[in-house]
């Protein structure tokens, strides 16, 4: 698309300019995160110096130590992990069953169910939060892990993601299994799920990421700091330690690092999922 007009010389220049632009963009995009890591390793007070420094004069891990010893960050990491993993497992199970059923199993009322769910997509989650809180209170689930994962256990988005993919499963595959005498659940478990591995991977990553990063709901439902997830703990920390820039940066690094690493390792699935999802236009 960008094939130049000026022959090989012009092409070279275009290539160089192109890569310069890309590089400039990448630098601008990554600078905040690099600074975050750099500042977390600075000795106390150095991040608040004038003129501002980019690199530490010498590297120290004291802030990370402080987070784990005095500020119980280990517990918050555990909480976040527990909540994110539980939500992901639930989401995989419930959404895949429902998505598959909506795509491949004909039952009366399937159409209306699909349309109701579609309508639900338009409603922003915040509309539900207050009554949901009151509901969980009545159920005794406030300030529990279960309460924290409730909104993520089954989602309309997840169902539709699965459904979209499941539509492309050839019916012959399913019928063959049925002819062999398999029950519907066996068909689902042994035939459909393995076929859906790519979209399940995508859904898992989506759910894990969004639950790990979720802020408003855990902020509302978790009142005891023993149960805080990382974003809530971090917001709590910044309320008390706003002056301690380096400490806050270390906290941010620890919050962001797991998901960035996860993303790096699994980006193929995640990216494919996003790009495929947009195909429906």
């Amino acid at each position, binding site marked *: 698309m960008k094939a130049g007009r000026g022959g090989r010389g012009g092409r070279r220049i275009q290539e160089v300019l192109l890569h310069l632009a890309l590089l400039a963009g990448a630098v601008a995009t990554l600078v905040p995160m690099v600074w975050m890591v750099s500042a977390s390793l600075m000795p106390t007070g150095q991040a608040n110096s004038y003129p501002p420094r980019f690199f530490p004069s010498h590297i120290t891990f004291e802030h990370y130590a402080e987070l784990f010893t005095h500020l119980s960050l280990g517990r918050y990491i555990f909480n976040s992990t527990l909540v994110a993993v539980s939500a992901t497992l639930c989401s*995989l199970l419930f959404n895949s069953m429902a998505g598959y059923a909506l795509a491949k199993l004909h039952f009366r009322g399937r159409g209306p169910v699909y349309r109701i769910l579609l309508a639900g997509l338009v409603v922003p989650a915040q509309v539900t939060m207050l009554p949901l809180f009151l509901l969980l209170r009545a159920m005794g689930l406030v*300030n529990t892990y279960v309460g924290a994962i409730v909104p993520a256990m089954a989602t309309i988005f997840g169902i539709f993601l699965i459904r979209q993919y499941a539509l492309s499963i050839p019916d012959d595959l399913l019928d063959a299994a049925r002819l062999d005498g398999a029950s519907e659940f066996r068909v689902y478990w042994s035939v459909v799920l393995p076929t859906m591995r790519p979209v399940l991977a995508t859904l898992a990553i989506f759910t894990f990421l969004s639950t790990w990063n979720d802020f408003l709901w855990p902020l509302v439902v978790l009142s005891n700091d023993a149960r805080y997830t990382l974003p809530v703990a971090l917001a709590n920390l910044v309320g*008390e330690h706003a002056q301690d820039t380096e400490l806050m940066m270390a906290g941010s690094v620890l919050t962001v690092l797991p998901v960035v690493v996860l993303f790096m390792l699994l980006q193929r699935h995640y990216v494919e999922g996003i790009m495929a999802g947009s195909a429906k236009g």
Partner: protein
Amino acid sequence: MTAALKSLPLLLALTACHSASAAGKDTDIEFWAFGREGEVLQTLMPEFEREHPGVHVRVQQIPWTAAHEKLLTAYVGNAMPDLAQLGNTWIPEFVALNALLPLDSLDSSSPDVSESSFFPGIWRTNLVTGRLYGIPWYVDTRLLFYRKDLLAQAGYPQPPITWAQWRDAMRAVKARGGSGRYAIFAPFNEWNVPVILGLQAGSPLLKDDGRYGAFGEPPFRRAFDLYLDWYRSGVAPVLGINDVGNIYQEFERGTYAMWITGPWNIGEFRRRLPREMQDKWGTAPLPGPEGAASGVSMAGGSSVVLFRRSHHHAVAWQLAEYLARPEQQLRFYRLTGDLPARTEAWRDSALAADPAAHAFWEQLQRVVPLPQVPEWELIATRVFDYAEQAVRGGMSTDTALARLDREVDQILARRRWLLSRAGTR
């Protein structure tokens, strides 16, 4: 992927197990504390736990900015602790919610804790419709922290006593300091200062037993104009509390010569300012419109309260008593700089001889409680919203105060309805 799904039941079981409370012979009680007090409180607990074997106190620390909403959220969510530190302006609110345990019966059987042991103005803030709902823990009022040397250099060896002197002193300091330096640090997103000035000018803040706002009336208007004048004349910078970076560094550098703040900063100043600065700062009671007697301040502070829904009233009360002991009050003072509510503790040599604390002793004789309405916290927020509009947004005093009154009236509508309903029952 399928293997992961198969582990789901196990994981759900683990989650349920973890959520269940650990039942045991020991008693666990939970205490919520805020800010610096929260950080320090845990160090006082081992001695209490030694005196009461089998009792374990868990202190949860919450920043002040989130404290009020976390308490309310916990109330609605049925997830309250056993005890908490409660700012005494919040006591009416939690009493209205029926969240606090009345302490009269517990208190009458306790010889150690009685009304006469505490500052009268402070004790009164714990009484709602005649019943006791909290034990005063530490007192808070706001007065002047200032740089003695900068004030002396500007021609004021003694701190100002009247509003007129105050204004002149600040102008002199500003003139000497030049650009980039100010006479007073008064963040516009704190409601204490305009409210205190209002109290000094004789404003009741709310009228008709807390049914309507009185911010547009002459006394408050006079105080508000004085307050705005600080910013307009340049003696105070137009900054919020979060904008200043490190206020202690700035105080040390002489960027500000005065700051209206509270007793916890005695400890902070001693901790954060270098040794050579320690004889350069001091505290003084607030100047008043007509002189020392009118220089009142607000009767603030925190109490220890017990929540109704707790299952451990007896143990929680013992902890409240423990914190009210003069020795514990003094220990707490030494750790935080927070001033004891127990008058007996003030006779301690360390406190009596502390020059910085002496100004607080004086000021505490002249404190006025804030309106005891449950909506106070929200009203206070609106006060500084409009102060900000007037200071930074160019809104005129008349408009700001008129709108403030209108909003306050609307906020109090529920209270009026409830009061009228109670009246007809």
